[in-house]
């Protein structure tokens, strides 16, 4: 038999006919459509039982309640906790992106030890036991040499059990160098200390105020507890007024009832000018000023020297004309503003620029606070309250051995509480300079907990240099941030969704509240609670150091500390002293005079008079070389604190802020002559020069350049790293002569063609 071509064709045709009559083509067609509609590489999220876990957010000082939706063991969505006193169901975009931090690629998954050069990114995985014994060995060695005071710790907070454990450890170990990262809280605490004579934070009863006068505070740009402030702003509509004094049309300014542009850095003068009008027109609260204040009228000190009172001072030197000259605001506006402020039934003046992540000049804070005093809105409904720290942490006094006692007597490296700045508690802005100059003593070891100073502290170059000078840097960061990347050892903490922790006092709240973080999911990696690690380090020392930590682990410590509050916290997620009322005027002030002090008597002894001659904090740089002034701005979509923007958050950033990897700086078309929208330019300041793009924006005062904070990360993941410029590279701290705090609000700058 010979198979010819025709037979072959016939076979094929027969095959084709048979195939069409078989299910093969039809079934394959159906299957291939299913296959192409459901590619095997498109993830299919597993379904299961839905559950909800309540916890408290600690990504920023806002302390919002969160409800996390879970499917089986997976956390799939973060929502705001309903009826939580701070945020009542609302939630900001950083909190909403929390799961990207939990499951994200920036997590440090196990203890790491540096093997390459600092910041090179070469690490070796080590066990927890090895990591802890390495720390203990180093610290024991320093202590034996009598150098315990050369060990420091930078933390984002000095409240709550974790901060207390750190502080306690440093104390029994023998170092005074516990440093909290700076914020407006520093300035407000000092204001409270000097004017009220108390150790307290400033709480703002914004819910009950009907006229909020904000001196550059980004009330809806992330100031205080952001979600709470959004709610207040919405509630204010139609019921009260918000006046924003600021050189740039921020979101807060845009939403306010009146935006008053001001020459940057002259806010204190405006406050005193308003005081002038209020006093001159007798619009102040007589009862408060006459009966509960000191320093309003001229006074004589113990040594018989006479001093000008607040009244005489502002009447003499801060007339509307003078202030108009300084601030650039017309005198009629000043007079009208003063009148409407004083005549409102619950007026409230606040300050702290932007999100309040930087402190400011003490004179500015005190001048603004004096306005509240003039209208008698201190410790009153709708006013400013002195809120003491919640006092639930009552641990036995520590016993110090001779080494510890000696170490504790050393001066602090940052000079806080020393001769020059006796009223300051922490001055991290002075830390880089102190380390670099080596004037006090060389720092030998540094712990960093919940902070990212390499990124957040001004003058990045100096900060980096200081870190390079410290031979042993330990980071407890959960993420590979800039500080962790420049550390020698990383002991990764659980992220907030994996751990127990008390979260006391959201920023700016007027009632004492303690929030409670609890694990939503099991720890995803080989991480450990920083509280546990501190306890374990202490126990490894033995002796008095170990004795100061009588708890088996952090959870036991927390449970013991919270005592009968533990159950309530576990159930409700927070503990609130709802009966709390700020002390009445009769008992509120513990100043030497027992009254509210317009001038601190103690302070006046050395620093004549804070308001005597108002001198604006001058920005660094020569006006001739740098004709413009660069100011930073904060906004919600860019996290500028120790946590960097997760992918979702950075995705929301507009293309007028970030384009590709280029940052855009805002310039008024008047000062940006010759530049078109999106043009490349070189922005230089005395601290450095960077490449930027220009965004022409009418909402900024001519003569200024504004740059957002929160960009220019070098660490974290590819979604954030190397995008834009870190503002801190372009600015250095300017020391406030009264407090030593960083009072810089801007720096001279120049914009040239790229």
């Amino acid at each position, binding site marked *: 038999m010979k198979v010819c071509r025709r037979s072959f064709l016939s076979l094929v045709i027969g095959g084709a006919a048979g195939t069409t009559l078989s299910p093969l083509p039809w079934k394959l067609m159906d299957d291939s459509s299913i296959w192409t509609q459901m590619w095997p590489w498109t993830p299919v999220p597993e379904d299961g039982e839905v559950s909800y876990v309540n916890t408290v957010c600690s990504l920023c000082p806002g302390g919002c309640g969160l409800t996390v939706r879970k499917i089986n063991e997976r956390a799939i969505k973060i929502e705001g906790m309903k009826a939580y006193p701070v945020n009542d169901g609302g939630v900001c975009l950083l909190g909403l992106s929390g799961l990207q931090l939990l499951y994200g690629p920036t997590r440090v998954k196990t203890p790491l030890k540096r093997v390459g050069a600092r910041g090179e990114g070469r690490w070796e995985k080590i066990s927890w036991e090895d990591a802890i014994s390495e720390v203990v060995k180093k610290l024991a060695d320093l202590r034996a040499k009598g150098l315990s005071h050369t060990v420091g710790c930078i933390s984002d907070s000095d409240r709550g059990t974790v901060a207390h454990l750190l502080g306690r450890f440093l104390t029994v170990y023998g170092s005074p160098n516990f440093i909290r990262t700076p914020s407006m809280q520093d300035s407000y605490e000092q204001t409270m200390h000097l004017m009220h004579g108390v150790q307290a934070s400033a709480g703002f009863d914004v819910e009950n105020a009907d006229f909020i006068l904000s001196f550059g505070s980004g009330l809806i740009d992330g100031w205080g507890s952001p979600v709470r402030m959004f709610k207040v702003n919405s509630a204010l509509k139609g019921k009260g007024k918000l006046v924003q004094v600021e050189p740039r049309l921020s979101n807060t300014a845009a939403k306010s009832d009146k935006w008053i542009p001001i020459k940057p850095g002259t806010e204190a003068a405006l406050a005193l000018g308003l005081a002038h009008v209020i006093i001159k027109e007798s619009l102040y609260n007589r009862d408060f000023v006459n009966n509960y204040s000191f320093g309003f009228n001229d006074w004589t000190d113990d040594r018989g020297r006479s001093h000008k009172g607040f009244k005489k001072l502002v009447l003499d030197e801060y007339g509307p004309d003078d202030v108009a000259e300084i601030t650039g605001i017309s005198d009629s506006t000043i007079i009208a503003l003063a009148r409407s402020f004083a005549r409102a039934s619950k007026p409230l003046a606040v300050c702290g620029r932007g999100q309040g992540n930087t402190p400011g000049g003490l004179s500015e804070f005190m001048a603004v606070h004096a306005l509240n005093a003039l209208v008698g809105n201190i410790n009153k409904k709708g006013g400013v309250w002195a809120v003491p720290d919640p006092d639930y942490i009552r641990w036995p006094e520590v016993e110090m051995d001779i080494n510890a006692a000696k170490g504790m007597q050393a001066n602090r490296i940052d000079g806080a509480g020393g001769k020059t700045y006796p009223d300051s508690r922490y001055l991290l802005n002075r830390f880089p300079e102190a380390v670099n100059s080596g004037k006090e003593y060389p720092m030998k070891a540094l712990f960093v907990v919940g902070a990212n100073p390499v990124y957040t502290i001004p003058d990045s170059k100096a900060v980096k240099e200081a870190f390079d000078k410290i031979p042993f840097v330990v980071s407890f960061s959960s993420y590979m941030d800039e500080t962790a990347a420049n550390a020698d050892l990383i002991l990764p903490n659980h992220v907030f969704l994996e751990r127990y922790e008390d979260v006391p006092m959201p920023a700016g709240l007027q009632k004492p509240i303690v929030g409670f973080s609890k694990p939503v999911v099991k720890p995803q990696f080989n991480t450990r609670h920083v509280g546990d690690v501190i306890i374990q380090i202490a126990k490894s020392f033995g002796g008095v150091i170990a004795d100061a930590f009588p708890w088996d682990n952090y959870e036991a410590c927390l449970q013991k500390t919270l005592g009968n509050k533990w159950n309530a916290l576990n159930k409700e997620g927070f503990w609130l002293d709802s009966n709390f009322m700020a002390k009445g005027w009769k008992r509120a002030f513990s100043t030497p005079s027992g009254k509210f002090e317009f001038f601190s008597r103690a302070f006046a002894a050395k620093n004549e008079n804070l308001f005597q001659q108002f001198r604006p904090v001058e920005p660094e740089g020569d006006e001739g070389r740098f004709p413009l002034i660069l100011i930073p701005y904060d906004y919600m979509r860019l996290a500028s604190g120790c946590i960097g923007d997760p992918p979702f*958050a950075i995705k929301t950033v507009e293309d007028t802020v970030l384009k590709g990897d280029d940052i855009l700086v805002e310039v008024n078309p008047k000062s940006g002559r010759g530049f078109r929208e999106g043009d490349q330019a070189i922005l230089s300041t005395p601290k450095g020069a960077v490449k930027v793009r220009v965004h022409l924006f009418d909402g900024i005062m001519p003569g200024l350049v504004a740059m957002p904070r929160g960009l220019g990360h070098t660490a974290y993941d590819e979604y954030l790293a190397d995008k834009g410029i870190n503002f801190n590279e372009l600015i250095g701290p300017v020391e406030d002569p009264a407090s030593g705090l960083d009072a810089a609000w801007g720096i001279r700058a120049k914009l040239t063609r790229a």
Partner: protein
Amino acid sequence: MKEEHKHGKASKFGMVIDLDKCTGCGSCMVACMSENNVPFKKDETNKLDSITWLRIYKLTNGKKFPETDICYIPRPCMQCEGDHGHSPCVSVCPATATDYNHETGIVSQIYTRCFGCRYCMAACPYHARYFNWWDPVWPDGMEKYLSPNVSPRMRGVVEKCSFCFHRYQLAKNKAYAQGRRELKEDEYQTACTQACPAGAITFGDLNNSHHAVYKLVKPDNKHGGRPRNPNAFRLLERLGTNPKVYYLSSREWVRRAGDNYIKDEVKKEHH
């Protein structure tokens, strides 16, 4: 079915956004992204290919310093009803991948049916639709937070805001478990509404006079749902898309910007 509508059984879910309260903070955008498994990529600054079902636009009044003013305007899918369900995108879809649901008034988008011709994107006057130019990639481990209620999309399909339709489905399930068919107002709320820290977004049934959305805008349902509240407006009202997202603003320039038109254009009056 038509009779059912006449009996008022059908809902018409809509949204009212108070632009006086909106702070442009971006919570709604992120709430939406995390609720709906929206992917992200390394560079999201090209806003034409950056998938944001809900996007906040920034308007300026164009005046010089210090008269300048800005306003944020969040833009979800408008769920246009057009002329009886004849919304711009639905009528051009050759694949029936998007359609108008008279039961809820929501415009659906079925990813597995879409073949990516993008006619709907061209038809949508609000740029509310986005194309997946790439397959979504979640960094290793991050796919753990994906929600099973919304299926992740693949390369080559169009996606858009669904008014969190899956939440409607889940709320219905819950109601059934309790033996009910009707949903209460607070049982079905979109993720953005729930998250908005300023309380600027209100969501509910525009056909139900007890719902807050109805009370806020007082829609004239006989005339294409035009708002009777003088502060309320809809985007590009004159196009007759009959959108279900209303905005409130006390500022006139914002309301005018909402119905943007070319200078010499003759404005068509609706009756």
